């Protein structure tokens, strides 16, 4: 049985990971779930189902929470305006950014910035990204903003 064999089929999760990597790398562009599905080479409905099965949340939730995590990092480390930060993480509506942010982090963007703790400067950025992405709470767009 020695010797050559063809490259084994990649596990399906590897293709889903390409889509998740795309969300992590290009969140600041006008990406949506359809783009992610294409990166995985799957139809949109099939992709969303498989992504959720592999990673425990929908691709829409993943992309939104990645954008919110990046926005939180910019709030902590820069003095740029909330609107500027909203657009620079690929979101297009300041209103829904503010309410999604409040839902995820429990405080408004400005309150979050004010309570920013000491720097996490020595931890590799990939780990900061992985560990500070908010846990999805709800994606209802009409729930009230929680304030400090």
């Amino acid at each position, binding site marked *: *049985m*020695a010797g050559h064999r063809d*490259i*084994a089929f*990649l*596990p*399906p*999760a*590897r293709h*889903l*990971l390409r889509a*998740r*990597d795309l969300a*992590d*790398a290009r969140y600041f562009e006008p990406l949506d779930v359809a783009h992610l599905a294409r990166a995985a080479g799957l139809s949109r409905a099939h992709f969303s189902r498989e992504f959720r099965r*592999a*990673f425990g949340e929908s691709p829409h939730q993943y992309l939104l929470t990645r954008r919110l995590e990046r926005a939180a990092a910019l709030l902590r480390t820069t003095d740029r305006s909330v609107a500027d930060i909203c657009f620079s993480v690929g979101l297009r509506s300041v209103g829904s950014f503010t309410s999604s942010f409040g839902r995820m982090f429990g405080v408004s963007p400005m309150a979050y910035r004010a309570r920013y703790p000491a*720097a996490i*400067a*020595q931890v*590799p*950025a*990939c780990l900061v990204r992985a560990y500070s992405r908010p846990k999805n709470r709800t994606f209802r767009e009409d729930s009230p903003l929680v304030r400090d």
Partner: protein
Amino acid sequence: MISIGSAQLWVHDQDEALAFYTDKVGFEVRSDVTVPELGNFRWLTVGPADQPDVAITLMAIPGPPVMDDETAEEVRTLMGKGFAGTIFLITDDCQASYEELKGRGVEFTTEPEEQPYGIDSAFRDPSGNHLRLTEVREL
């Protein structure tokens, strides 16, 4: 004194991994030994030419009796999801290393960006393993 000799990385396919780590990342082969008495177990290690005492072992996922099929499938899936481990590589010039690897067809998941601890970038191997490539700044 204890030092690190090699650390093991699961790979989906050893030939594919070998080509990636040598042709694209630029590592050298340290050992490539196939042992017929061990069911053609292949001990395959690679490492950076300038760091001869540390290697990465590119380990194929075994079948039974070493590993049952179900466990092997779990490892394969974890690896595909990108959760089987990370290697933190360092470079003295992140931008130059990035250009070099990109020129050889490595797809980066993070392009070089400023971080408080230096300039950081990332890519994956064909199996889904995560590799960071960082130019570390003294804090």
